[in-house]
């Protein structure tokens, strides 16, 4: 298997993204029922953080941002 730098970066992005997505989803689940304005903001932020991690996973997996190289 040919492992150049971009491949290693993609693997790190996927693995790291999975960890962050799982951790932020767990934190969101744990905080789901906490009341108060600031906690609702935190929940929104955690949800967006989880979304960002999923986007990073998809980018690492070449699902997003996979463009043909310029000539």
């Amino acid at each position, binding site marked *: 298997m040919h492992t150049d730098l971009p491949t290693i*970066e993609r693997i790190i*992005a996927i693995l*790291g993204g999975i960890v962050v997505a799982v951790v*932020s989803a767990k934190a969101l689940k744990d905080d789901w029922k906490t009341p108060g304005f600031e906690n609702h903001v935190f929940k929104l*932020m*955690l949800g*967006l953080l989880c979304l*960002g991690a999923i986007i*990073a996973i998809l980018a*690492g997996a070449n699902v997003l941002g996979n463009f043909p190289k310029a000539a």
Partner: protein
Amino acid sequence: MAVASVSHGGLVSDAHHGEVDQLYVETRELRLQGFMLFLVSDLVLFSSFIFAYLYMRSSGQGWPPPGINRLDVAFAAVNSVILFGSGATMHYALENWKHGNFGKYSGFMVATIILGALFLGGQAYEYTNLIVHDHVTWGGSGIFGASFFTLTGMHGFHVTVGVIYLTILLLQSIHGTYTKEKFFGLTAGTLYWHFVDVIWVALFSIFYLI
């Protein structure tokens, strides 16, 4: 006056009467609203630049402009994961403070600061590559260079401020500024750091993925 202290790895509440400072209780909501307004004003600032970028991009002939390579998605994905990871560690830092685990709080705070600094290092590396190898500059690469360096630079400035801010918060908490009941500074720091993370979700998507 209430005195706050940290001792033997555990947080101690206000020492004098075992009660939270009344002034703190009365002003906390106001301070929270003030800080949220600050974040909203920052959101407006970023939104203005983002929509200006998207408008200019949509009115051009293909993107990126001829002669400019696409940005390195793989490296940016790693850098993004580092920043998003720092958001998770910051969340757990605050949670541990609320539960009185000063040791874990400090660990998560230090991890957040290190991850934030790593993100900045990654951004500096990317800038260097763009300027030196791809010859993309703020003023010499048209709308692409101007919008990329302006938006990511503005975000990088926010991350830099955040790293300094979190370092000050960590030092303050070590010196006993906050207690288990009075920690608005830490709440504000967490809100700010999450905000910086969320802004990067948008910037990463519009510059690297579409």
